[in-house]
């Protein structure tokens, strides 16, 4: 049974993606990511000297500041900050620059559904732009569950509110290995199978959740390709950005 989506997309179709790097001049790294009408700008400052009070000085420390489009920062923003911080901590190599702090500032430009995944993607690109060492990229997607049990990817805000449940999922990006097939197989398999972050809203059955996971993981291949293409083309376009 086909789901009719208001903008005519198929259930597995993502909204048009757009990504640009280096849009802010003062920050060490910046990126803008938009999925359809949802647009988020991420800026990275760092590494700066010194860690915050309770943090381990033997590792680099990350700090996330989430700025909503309007109004003051409340509990929702604090939750997003915590989720984003832990997600990015898992992809950064924290032992390379110990006793430093890297600040990531997220500014919501427009929220039309799928806000947290957009922010994760933007933050990831901004970190690459700033040259922070990463283990792998993180690609993020939102999967919705309709009442009939179908899984829909990348919902708009209206769709999110109407749906029974939705899940924000973050996966490591798919691997384009230059090594021949079979070598280091287990490690890459683990990476491909892994889930970095999951935040769900609304109740769903356990099987439905695993369907969402599968669909989401399948979509990450497309997102990873888009990311790779985007990052490569911009690197070729600019000279080295020293400092």
């Amino acid at each position: 049974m086909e789901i009719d989506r208001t903008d005519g997309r198929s259930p597995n179709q993502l909204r048009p993606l757009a990504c640009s790097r280096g849009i802010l001049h003062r920050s060490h790294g910046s990126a803008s990511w938009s999925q359809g009408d949802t647009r988020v700008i991420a800026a990275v400052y760092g590494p700066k000297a010194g860690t915050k009070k309770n943090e381990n000085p033997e590792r680099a420390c990350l700090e996330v500041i989430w700025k909503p489009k309007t109004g003051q920062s409340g509990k929702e923003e604090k939750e997003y900050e915590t989720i984003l911080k832990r997600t990015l901590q898992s992809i950064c190599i924290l032992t390379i620059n110990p006793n430093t702090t890297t600040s990531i500032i997220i500014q919501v430009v427009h929220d039309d559904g799928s806000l947290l995944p957009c922010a994760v993607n933007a933050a990831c690109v901004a970190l690459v732009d700033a040259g922070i060492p990463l283990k792998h990229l993180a690609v993020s997607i939102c999967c919705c569950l309709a009442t009939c049990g179908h899984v829909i990817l990348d919902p708009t805000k209206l769709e999110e509110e109407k749906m029974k449940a939705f899940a924000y999922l973050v996966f490591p990006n798919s691997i384009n290995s230059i090594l021949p097939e079979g070598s280091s197989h287990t490690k890459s398999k683990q990476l491909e199978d892994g889930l970095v972050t999951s935040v769900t809203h609304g109740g769903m059955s356990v099987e439905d959740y695993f369907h969402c996971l599968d669909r989401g993981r399948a979509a990450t291949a497309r997102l990873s390709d888009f990311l790779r293409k985007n990052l490569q083309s911009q690197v070729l376009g600019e000279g080295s950005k020293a400092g």
Partner: protein
Amino acid sequence: MGLPNESGDLLSKMDSDASRRLFPLRFYESHLSISTRPDGRPLKSAREAFVGPGDVASADGSAMTKIGSTTMLAAIKMEIMTPSADKPDEGSIAVEFYMPPICSPLVRPGRPAEIAPVISKQLYDTIMSSGMIDLKELSLISGKAAWMVYLDIYCLDADGALFDAALYSAAAAFSFLQIPVVSLSEEGRLTIIPEEGNGNKSDKDVVNKGKRKLTISSLPFSLTCGLHKNYILPDPTSEEETLMETFVTVVLNSSGHLVSLYKPGGPVLAQTSTIQDCIALTRQRMTDLQKSLDEAITEMKVD
């Protein structure tokens, strides 16, 4: 490479308390390798949970829960509000989670815990997602008055698994809740009728006669598991929480539906098998928690 060996020898010589403070990770992993946890639990077992009525006199429903040493006190107060124009038949719930300075050495009076607003929001989302409360039941007079449920949860002792204990105490508080009977006065305000002698108030003034308890369709129960290397460790204590950085919180409701699967990042990636194990552990835990809660409810009814 003299240093690691030295510390290895030092570890075997010094007593357990010192090694616990100086080399916490090594101390911990030495326990894991013999399939036990420092507090003596087997690897996959969660701490025992206690639940009881909270004895808060000014609250309409209250509960106290204890998971290991983590203690939570939840209190529900109901106040009257005017419902919003686009939802005239619905009341509202406000959840607030407090970590007062008594609960943990990391919280200071001027510096509130960072995790408190996050847990507040998580609790609110979980309670709304689980469908435990039907907001339409909170309506009193359509368009004019509805119940505003203030749920305040105070952490009295923080020793890991804060969200689990808080959610359990919220579920218990809603189960113990007694909605006060209100009547409409001449000025249009609703006031509580005292229990004894409603002689001069005629029955038709009473707005919600007979609706003393909320119908709770299904209670959510949760279990937080820490992921460390290849181990899944349910119900971590605060000491374990500082060593592990990856946590998965699974919330199931009594009908077996997944209310929430919350994994906020962390260095360990969760494989599908890991997630399935966590869900299975949560199901087990849910039966225990539900049993304790049912016993507490029947005890309260007897009183």
